[in-house]
């Protein structure tokens, strides 16, 4: 099997296997999870779980403190508790969880940190010249340090796709190591930008490099490129995580981002995680959804389950 070789910081060479993936087979296996039928109490569990795994995201050039504060309010209370309390009481369900984290640009980190004080919700910051990653390494390190120093609890970096696609895996590896260093104790998610990589083989290889280099999570996409997250791409990454765990004992988290808009899709992903990695990954510490619209669809479905009929989104805010 083809292997690539990278040199670690300590000078040792490691061989990273380039596992071949058959695209047709991977697509078929992923499709299998769309046939799972999650109903009744397993559906409510799934909806709650998915909500608790969401990273509410705004990454626009037009973001302002006002915009971000608004989103943070929604992150705390996706739906005003008084509006949903009667339904939950009737069904004897627990309170609606808040989302796992918000995800913003470094410049907005201070605003988010302030707005979410005391909530337990994480502030994830993109960095490394997100989304393109086309900048000198020092800029990317500074980008990261700024976010960390201003209170980000998680960093979402992008890999150097130019280096990857030209076969310069050493650079890809080194950059992740450098950013991990700049993170210190802060959690690092490595965005592979799967939509630019061109094949599942490459997604697998990029996953391996990211995990070997010290990433805590591997993430599909920036959300700025189509295709973003898909079931098969996520499957390939989950399988890479499973093998890495077998080899090293380390559990790496996973985050599909972009393109997951409906509760139905989110539940399919949960089935896939459950059946590929198992219960240890079925929590927000190990799995996240990079989403915005998804939160409201999850709420809509919760209301549907509570009332028994198709609901509308007028009981909670759009943003």
């Amino acid at each position, binding site marked *: *099997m083809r292997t690539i070789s990278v040199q670690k910081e300590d000078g040792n060479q490691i061989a990273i296997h380039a*596992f*071949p*993936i*058959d695209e*047709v*087979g*991977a697509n*078929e*296996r992923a499709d299998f999870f769309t*046939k*799972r*039928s*999650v*109903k*009744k*109490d*397993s*559906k409510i*569990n*799934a909806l709650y*779980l998915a909500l608790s795994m969401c990273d509410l995201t705004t990454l626009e050039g037009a973001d302002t403190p006002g915009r971000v504060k608004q989103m943070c309010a929604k992150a705390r209370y996706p739906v005003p508790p008084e509006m949903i309390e009667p339904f939950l009481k009737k069904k004897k369900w627990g309170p609606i969880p808040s989302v796992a984290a918000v995800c913003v640009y470094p410049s907005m980190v201070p605003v988010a940190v302030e707005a979410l004080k005391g909530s337990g919700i994480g502030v994830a910051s993109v960095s490394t010249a997100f989304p393109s990653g086309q900048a000198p390494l020092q800029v990317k390190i500074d980008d990261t340090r700024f976010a960390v120093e201003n209170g980000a609890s998680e960093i979402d970096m992008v890999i150097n796709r130019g280096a990857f696609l030209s076969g310069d895996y050493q650079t890809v590896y080194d950059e992740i190591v450098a950013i991990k260093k700049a993170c210190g104790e802060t959690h690092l998610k490595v965005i592979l930008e799967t939509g630019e990589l061109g094949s599942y083989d490459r997604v697998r290889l990029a996953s391996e490099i990211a995990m070997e280099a010290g990433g805590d999570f591997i993430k599909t996409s920036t959300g700025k490129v189509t295709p973003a997250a898909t079931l098969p791409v996520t499957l390939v990454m989950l*399988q890479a995580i499973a093998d890495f765990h077998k080899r090293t004992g380390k559990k790496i988290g996973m985050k599909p981002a972009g393109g997951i808009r409906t509760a139905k899709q989110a539940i399919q992903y*949960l*089935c896939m995680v*459950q*059946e590929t990695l198992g*219960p240890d990954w*079925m*929590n927000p510490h190990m799995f996240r959804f990079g989403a915005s619209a998804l939160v409201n669809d999850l709420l809509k479905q919760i209301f549907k389950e509570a009332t028994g009929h198709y609901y509308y989104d007028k009981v909670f805010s759009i943003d």
Partner: protein
Amino acid sequence: MNFEYAPSIESIDIVKIDPKNKLFIDGKFVEPTSKKFFATINPATGEPLAQIADANAKDVDLAVKAARKAFPKWAKLSGKERGRYLFRIARIIQERARELAVLETLDNGKPIKESRDVDVPLVAAHFFYYAGWADKLEYAIPGKDTKPLGVVGQIIPWNFPLLMAAWKIAPALACGNTVVIKPAETTSLSILLLAQIFQEAGLPEGVVNIVTGAGETGAAIVNHPDINKIAFTGSTEVARIIQKAVAHTDKKLTLELGGKSANIVYEDAAIEQAVEGVINGIYFNQGHVCCAGSRLLLEESIAEMFVDKLKNRMEKLRVGNPLDKNTDIGAINSAAEHAKIMKLVESGISEGGEYFEPSFAIPSKGYFHKPCFFNKVSSAFSLSRVEVFGPVLAISTFRTTAEAIMKANDTQYGLAAGVWSEKGSKVHKTAAALKAGIIWANTYNKFDPSSPFGGFNESGFGREGGRHGLFPYLSIK
């Protein structure tokens, strides 16, 4: 958190099962001469579903007479007109798809997910495919004018009741033949619903006749003097009896029999997809598949890693109520089959294979069996040679391409084989050397009406599907 799937049971309200099911002869449902009926069981519960008519030699004779009477008119129809009937039937199958799928699951035990997403769509597709051939028979054999054979007798098995009916009936009718067909005695209900669809489509009386029953009914068909051709899908043992029985007659014969197909996984395979392919190859349809990949040949260098992944994957399979949409593996079709599988598993253990079964529980009511495998099986074990026809995999290793080919061919069967490698030339070389009628490279259990299916050696002769599927139903003018 433990993410369980709540039961998601498909409703059976859509199906109306007649408590007493008659024979279908000359376009009508008629009582059996003997007035005898037998029970058909739901293998998921062990409970009877309905009574099925028991056709004797007299009934078979009536059916053949009806088919013979209908033949000249049916054969004289233009291909275009025959095609119209088949297109109509295909459309109605699509419209009543859910009804057919639920009935199939109740009587056969296969998961509703399979009957709904695999079996019934393929059934419609077969009728569509052969409908389009009916008026293009001039292209069946280049330069030759063809004609139908006459009345064909067809005997089909219980593992894919509707699909086997489609594989037999569609090409026979497209070519202008008329049919007398016997479903397996444990799965007669869905073909009787198909008969209602034939009526709805206005198929002329006598073109298809259905005689339900067991071995004696089958023998009556095989031995009937006014049948021009026999098509049989089932076990090699029964096929031997049939082949002898027709030896001194002019009856044409095609057989689609058992297999002990090898799934070869080379070290340079796409491993995750190969694992899925192996699982699908032997556990799909509870292993009741003639072309099941029941032998796994692993290149030794990846054997341990692969078997580990297999075990992990098997732990995630869901065995249970076939009507639950989340069920992956349903019930074994009958008590008899269940006993047979258990006996073979016992003998495998006594022979010394390393047995593995997943840790989850399976239902105690009904006939269920865990998907399982025997590791480190030698070619000399009976498990490497005898068809189990159940969810039991025999695993052994090889070290070179030549050895893999030799081991894969080391069987009296020759129905299918799987080859897993990312190296194209090796896939082609292996495929060229394997003595099997269907080679699945980097995939398994793929079926299509346009793809010819059939075996080498003792897995039978003749092909079903594709242009080649016409040959057994035509003769040269």
